[in-house]
C-alpha cells in the first residue's frame, strides 16, 4: 500500500504495524488523560521556580566566585614570590644576599653559593662577621657605577639585630671578634 503526496509515492506501513502503534498510543493516552496533567505540571513549575535561585547560585555564582578567588590567590602568590622570596633554610644566606654588593668586593671572604646551607658552625668561623663588616661598607660600594638595581644593603644595626635574634648574643659576639678592628676602618 502506498500513500501519495505531490505525485511522490511513499511506502505505507502494513496494517498490523499500524494497529500496534495505534493501540500503544491509545493505551498511553488513556493513562495520560486520567492524570491531572495541569496540576502536576503546575506543581513541578512551582518547585522548579523555587529551586531556580539556588540552582543559579550553584551553577553560575559559586563557580564564578571560586574562579575569581583562585585567580586572585594565584596572582597574590606570584607577586609574593617575586617581591618577597621565601627565606627557607638558614636565614644567613638571605641576609648575606642583601648585602652582596659589599661582599662581592671582598675576595678573601668568598660568598656562599646560592642554595648552600649555612649553619651556626660556619658562622662561628666568621661568616656573620664578614657579612656585618661588608654591610657596613656596602653603602659606599653600592652607589658606584654599574651597581644600578643592586640590592640595597641593610644597615649594620638592623642586620646585627636580626643575627642576634637568630643565633643569640654569644655566638654573634664570638663571630664578630676578628672583625672588630675592620669595622673601625670602615
Amino acid at each position: 500500500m502506498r500513500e501519495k503526496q505531490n505525485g511522490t509515492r511513499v511506502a505505507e506501513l502494513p496494517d498490523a504495524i499500524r494497529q500496534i502503534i495505534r493501540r500503544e498510543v491509545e493505551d498511553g493516552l488513556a493513562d495520560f488523560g486520567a492524570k491531572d496533567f495541569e496540576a502536576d505540571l503546575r506543581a513541578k513549575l512551582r518547585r522548579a521556580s523555587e529551586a531556580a535561585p539556588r540552582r543559579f547560585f550553584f551553577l553560575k555564582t559559586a563557580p564564578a566566585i571560586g574562579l575569581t578567588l583562585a585567580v586572585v590567590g594565584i596572582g597574590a602568590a606570584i607577586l609574593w614570590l617575586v617581591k618577597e622570596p621565601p627565606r627557607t633554610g638558614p636565614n644567613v644566606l638571605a641576609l648575606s644576599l642583601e648585602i652582596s654588593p659589599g661582599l662581592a668586593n671582598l675576595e678573601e671572604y668568598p660568598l656562599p653559593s646560592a642554595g648552600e646551607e649555612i649553619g651556626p658552625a660556619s658562622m662561628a668561623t666568621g661568616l656573620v662577621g664578614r657579612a656585618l663588616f661588608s654591610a657596613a661598607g656596602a653603602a659606599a660600594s653600592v652607589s658606584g657605577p654599574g651597581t644600578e638595581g643592586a640590592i640595597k644593603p641593610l644597615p649594620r644595626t638592623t642586620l646585627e639585630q636580626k643575627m642576634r635574634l637568630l643565633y643569640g648574643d654569644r655566638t654573634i659576639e664570638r663571630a664578630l671578634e676578628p672583625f672588630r678592628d675592620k669595622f673601625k676602618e670602615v
Partner: protein
Amino acid sequence: VTIPGQDLFARLAAYREDVFRLCLGFSRNAAVAEDLCHEVFLKAFGRATSLREPAGARIWLLRIARTTCLDHLRRLRLLPTVRVEEAARAMADPPGPEALSETSEERQRLKAAIRALPKKQRDVLVLREYGGLSYDDLARILRIRPGTVMSRLNRARKAVTAAFKGERR
C-alpha cells in the same frame, strides 16, 4: 524557570497530547513519556521568550519535545538504567500470558525494528507515526525539505516492515 501566565500556560498545555505522543514514540514507555512531557513543558516555559510567532507554538513545542527525547535517549545510551517504579510495577503486577502474547511481544518486536533504523529515518518515522504530523510539519520541525521527509519516511517504513516481518518468521 518562571511560572507562566494563565494565557501562555493554557495555550501550550492544549498541545499536551501531541507532545505526549511524540515522547511515547521516542521512549516507547508511557511512564517515561509522561515525565518527558513534563520536562518538555518546563523547558518551553523557561524559553517562552524565544517563541516569536504565537501561531507557530505547536511546531515550536514539538521541536523542543523532539530535542528533549533525543537527549533522553542519549542519556540512556550513556547510562542504561531500569526505572525503580517500572521494576516495582512489573514485580507487583506481572502481565497475564494473553497480554504478553498479544501486546507486549508485538510491541517489543516493533520497538526492536524501529530501534534498528538509522537515526534520521527513525526520527521521521516516530514523528509521523506516533506524532501524526503532516509532511510539512515534519519538514518544519526537522528543518529539511518535504521531499527529504518523504524519501526518509519511505526508506524507514520499508526497513521497519522488513525487520518486523523477518522477526515474525
